[in-house]
């Protein structure tokens, strides 16, 4: 009897494994993107035009996305990681080279400067296609802050105790601490990181909360006076609450690009290419830009923007030469561990 049961259990396990291992194109494309980072209409339009069913899944930070993809529990066909994470995923062998013949809209519509920028983390532009880009800066409420903000130091001003929102992800949090001290946001120097950590611990009593997507809603709802936020959210929040203002601090900040990539274990490679090409079409890129208000690297779409204010908006399309900007780079496993350790020390401090 016992043997029989054991055999049954083993059979069940083998069957479930076999089901997982099945690999074939199935008329779907499984997309893994940031939360609220696409106009749902464009997905519907894609389904209508191509007959490919879109299975859509969302993540909140690069760090949350990586273990899921690395573990391979779910196989995605298209993912949208940021710059340094693209680099990390290439290094981990998680991505496959794209066939740009199948993505004609990419090279045609996306500006040369963005390809040059993504060359930093994807040498030769083999693995990724830029989707959105922007900066990390300070969003503040003019009715609660009656001074000009131009520096990260405002986030350490005890006047605004309990009114400050910080980003709850390793790199964005450290970028603020490092940039404030004039260090590179890609620093791997332990002394610099310790200094940044200490500053962030000193700041903690003033911080209302460490959040990500909620910065937007809390700033619109007047819950906080100052928040660290991605530029793409700034236009949206201003539409909802005209008291909000976005600035890029003078000490410099991060300029990031989020990119479409195809993971090495994708099941629907053909459909994935179709999806990326569709996203690079100027009308689709425009639709997405108008919906999510994150800056598009799609120059053909930029030309189609009708609202002159938005078209020339210094938030959506800033003159990059005016600021001290850096793109996050993948810093290697040791640095990753150091960042995580120091991050935990900040989160654990009183």
């Amino acid at each position, binding site marked *: *009897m016992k043997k029989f*049961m054991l055999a*049954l*259990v083993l059979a*069940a*396990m083998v069957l479930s494994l076999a089901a997982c291992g099945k690999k074939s194109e199935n008329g779907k494309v499984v997309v893994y993107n940031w939360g609220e980072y696409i106009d749902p209409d464009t997905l519907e339009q894609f389904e209508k035009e191509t007959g490919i069913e879109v299975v859509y899944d969302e993540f909140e*930070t690069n*760090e*949350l996305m*990586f*273990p899921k993809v*690395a573990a391979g529990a779910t196989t995605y066909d298209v993912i949208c990681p940021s710059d340094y994470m693209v680099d990390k995923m290439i290094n981990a062998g998680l991505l496959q080279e794209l066939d740009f013949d199948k993505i004609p809209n990419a090279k045609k519509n996306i500006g040369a400067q963005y390809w040059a920028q993504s060359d930093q983390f994807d040498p030769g532009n083999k693995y990724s296609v830029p989707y959105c880009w922007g900066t990390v800066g300070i969003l503040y409420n003019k009715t609660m802050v009656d001074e000009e903000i131009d520096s990260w130091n405002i986030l350490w001003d005890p006047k605004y105790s*309990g009114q400050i929102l910080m980003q*709850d992800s*390793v790199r964005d949090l450290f970028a603020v601490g490092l940039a404030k001290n004039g260090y590179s946001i890609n620093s791997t120097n332990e002394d610099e990181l310790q200094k940044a950590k200490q500053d962030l611990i000193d700041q*903690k009593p003033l*911080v*209302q*909360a*460490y*959040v990500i997507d909620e910065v937007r809603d809390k700033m619109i*709802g*007047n*819950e906080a006076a100052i928040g660290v936020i991605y530029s793409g959210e700034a236009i949206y929040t201003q539409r909802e609450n005209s008291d909000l203002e976005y600035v890029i601090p003078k000490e410099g900040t991060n300029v990031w690009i989020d990119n479409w990539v195809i993971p090495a274990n994708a099941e629907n490679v053909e459909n994935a290419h179709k999806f990326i090409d569709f996203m690079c079409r100027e009308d689709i890129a425009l639709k997405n830009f108008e919906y999510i208000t994150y800056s598009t690297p799609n120059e053909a779409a930029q030309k189609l923007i009708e609202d002159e204010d938005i078209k020339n908006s210094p938030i959506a399309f800033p003159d990059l030469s005016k600021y001290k900007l850096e793109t996050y780079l993948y810093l290697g496993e040791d640095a990753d561990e150091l960042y*995580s350790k120091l991050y*935990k*020390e900040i*989160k*654990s401090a009183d």
Partner: protein
Amino acid sequence: MLRNKNKLMLGIPYYVWSVIFIVIPLFMVFYYGLTDKTGAFTFENVSAIATYEHSKALWLAVKLSIISTIICFFLAYPLAMILAKYAKGKSSVLVMLFILPMWMNFLLRTMAWQTLLENNGVINTMLSFIGLPRMTMINTPGAIVFGMVYNFLPFMVLPLYNSLEKIDPNMINAARDLGANAFITFFKVTLPLSVPGIISGITMVFVPALTTFVISTLLGGSKILLIGNVIEQEFSQTNNWHLGSGLSIVLMIFIIISMVIQSIADKDGEGSVL
């Protein structure tokens, strides 16, 4: 013989279930927890609990869950007594009313409290409307305790209600006949007879409160790191499953201790009933 065989056959779904969803995952936790990245055996992941950040997070989690369990107990006991006192038909409606909110998603209920406790939230708006000063409630340890009590209170009420309901009213009548007043009857009869319910209620509140990470993230603004948050971050963000599993083993020890206490106390409870 035939009956035995049938019994075994009926048990098969349960065996399969427990192997796939209990034994194998547990084995994996122990495997990851006791190895390092190269697969070599190590105790480092378990002993990592001694580092300042981890032991602080564990201590804080223990502290907050003990506070919540105590509050839950004192809120739940009178309620369970009221429920048990009512006639059968009436009390089932009341119990149902009490369980009703639990049908709503746990996450949604916690997020609703976020909206209530916020600086410009519902409660503060009402306070300032009647001329009282605003209070900072969200993102404090108090808010986390509040969230734990709110979410886990039914887990305390139901076992208490079950054990109180089982008490034969004749026992209480007998105590009163023999001259005990209400006070003494409660402490000498009702309370001792409800010990199994108390113990299982305490375990059912303490264990989920100790391991929670959702409540502390949502109501603590990610400012307060509990051991559950540390483990969650090791798995989901840092991608260090070995450390996450090692710390889970430590947490499991705590849970097993409270389960052992429960089973010992339950035996006593049954003995006294007989």
